[in-house]
């Protein structure tokens, strides 16, 4: 299966505004993510699991989905996606600091367990792979009612070893449900390299087994990601059934703040990956293309940093959940 890529000096048919928006989304997610790492290292946030290196494809999908209309069953690295759809740095900092007003879970779940009813982002737990079946379910509901909403769902390549993932692909394909399955393949499941996880390097090859279109896209190439996302969403929305997209992405951080990848990774390889960071490359590419100036880029960083500072301030000032609320929302509350 060929990997979709963009030639260095190609705009891939995307206008300047779209390209700038993509860059803005990517940078915004990255700055937030880095800020959370800082909070973690400062001992103010006990846990973080990062999306750094995965942003491009998430931004691409976020921009091609209809927020609040389509259905989203994401996974823990999808910070950038949630931001594009309409969640805010403040929302996630509330979560990172386990504040009562965290819209994801009211401080009940670990950070990066996304949920937003308003945006049809359904609540995600920690058990990897389960959300693909939920996505088949939201899409089935849309199909039963004859609505044109599509469902987007994602997971890592490691999670595709779970039986639920097969069950979801098989069912969605059999019933031609409007689901976009995105596999964010960073080649690692915590410490386990893909070679011990699966027999072939491309998860998208499995699309054939289900009679689905499969695509592999270079996750370090935002424009290629955008085109693949547009095509995948259009396919799902056309009623032709699901589509399986695999993005080759980089895990530029340890698995989570509890992990230390130096124990099991070749550091020179990691260094090489850092050189391929899509955010850095995309910035130069846009500047080369004349879509962005150095000044734009630095103004943008200033603006986003200010937003982040404000968000952090607000989140820090917000109260923790009151212990008296711990028993709430187990079942419907009868009044």
């Amino acid at each position: 299966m060929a990997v979709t890529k963009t030639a260095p000096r190609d705009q891939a048919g995307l206008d300047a505004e779209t390209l700038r928006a993509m860059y803005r989304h990517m940078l915004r997610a990255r700055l937030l993510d880095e800020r959370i790492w800082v909070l973690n290292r400062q001992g103010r946030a006990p846990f973080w699991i990062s999306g750094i290196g995965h942003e491009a494809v998430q931004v691409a999908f976020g921009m091609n989905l209809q927020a609040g209309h389509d259905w989203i069953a994401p996974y823990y690295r999808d910070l950038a996606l949630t931001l594009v759809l309409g969640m805010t740095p403040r929302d996630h900092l509330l979560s990172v600091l386990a504040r009562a007003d965290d819209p994801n879970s009211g401080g009940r779940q670990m950070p990066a367990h996304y949920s937003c009813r308003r945006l049809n982002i359904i609540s995600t737990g920690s058990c990897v792979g389960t959300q693909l079946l939920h996505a088949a379910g939201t899409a089935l509901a849309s199909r039963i009612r004859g609505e044109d909403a599509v469902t987007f769902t994602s997971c890592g390549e490691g999670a595709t070893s779970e039986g639920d993932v097969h069950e979801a692909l098989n069912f969605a394909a059999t019933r031609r449900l409007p689901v976009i399955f995105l596999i964010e393949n960073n080649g690692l499941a915590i410490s386990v390299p893909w070679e011990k996880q699966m027999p072939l390097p491309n998860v998208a090859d499995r699309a054939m087994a289900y009679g689905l279109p499969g695509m592999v896209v270079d996750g370090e190439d935002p424009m290629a990601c955008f085109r693949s996302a547009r095509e995948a969403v259009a396919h799902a929305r056309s009623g032709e059934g699901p589509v399986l997209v695999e993005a080759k992405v980089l895990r530029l951080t340890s698995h989570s703040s509890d992990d230390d990848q130096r124990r099991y990774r070749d550091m020179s390889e990691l260094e090489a990956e850092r050189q391929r960071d899509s955010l850095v490359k995309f910035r130069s590419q846009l500047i080369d293309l004349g879509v962005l100036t150095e000044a734009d880029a630095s103004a943008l960083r200033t603006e986003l940093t200010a937003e982040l500072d404000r968000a952090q301030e607000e989140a820090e000032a917000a109260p923790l959940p009151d212990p008296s609320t711990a028993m709430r929302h187990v079942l419907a509350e009868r009044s």
Partner: protein
Amino acid sequence: MAEITFLKAIREGIRDEMERDASVFVLGEDVGAKGGVFGVTEGLQNEFGEWRVLDSPLAESLIAGVAVGAACNGMRPIAEIQFQDFILPAVDQIISEAAKFRYRSNGDWNLPMVVRAPFGGGVHGALYHSQSLEAIFCHVPGLRVVAPSTPYDAKGMIVSAIRDPDPVLYFEHKRAYRAIKGEVPDGEYTVPLDGARIARAGADIAVFTYGMMVHTVLEAAERMVPAGFECEVVDLRSLRPLDRDAIVASAKKCGKVLVAQEANLAVSVGSEVAAIIAEECFEYLDAPVMRLGGPEIPAMPYAPPLERFYLQTPDKVEAALRALAAY
């Protein structure tokens, strides 16, 4: 009022709700043309079409997980698991996902979904078509678990389960399907999902039970009458939450308690009932709490002598009641 089977009562409840509410749909293995292996959904696909009575692939985690997603998106799925024994591949979706969805989203999401499954033995079903595995789910906050024993409750509780905003596991004793008949009103009615039922009033020995065992216990209770003992038979019906007040009231009233179930005893519904009584009725008991249940073997064997060994019978219950009476 018509006298109908337990099975038909469930079907009527499902049918009425499907007619009333377009968001209700059925999902499971063989639920369509075949109408389920026991016939509970017979005729429904003809009436409501392929998408509202959907034959799923052979995958129980799928059935539960798809129900979770569909419930997020405005539907009220009724997921059928062909035998309760085969619910185990769906345990992760039920316990990790369905039970925790509301709580983990701080009340933002809720899942109006029902998971139905036939349980229990005595039909030569051997290890994998006879189990009573409800204890596993009764441990888990965020779920409701019910097991009606009469056609009246079967219909009223399936309707309540479908309308409930949270996940309800609805377990049907497979031997009750055709063996148990009873009067069921024609119109719409509901039975609450959290109350026990006094199946027989008495003041001498309180018996707590559920499912098909209710009928076994009632038979044994009648045999105690000539000797002057009136048993109070409490049909728990709702296994999570248990109706603590009703349990405590009957236990206090009678002072002697038998807990009887088909399921294995260790860490079971019967354990919890006994524990509640041990906590709350200390000053009211005239005898130790007694429990009857499946022996310590992994599941009911096939050969008739072994199956009989496993099952509780009116004789075994009667023997326990006599021992309690004599205490």
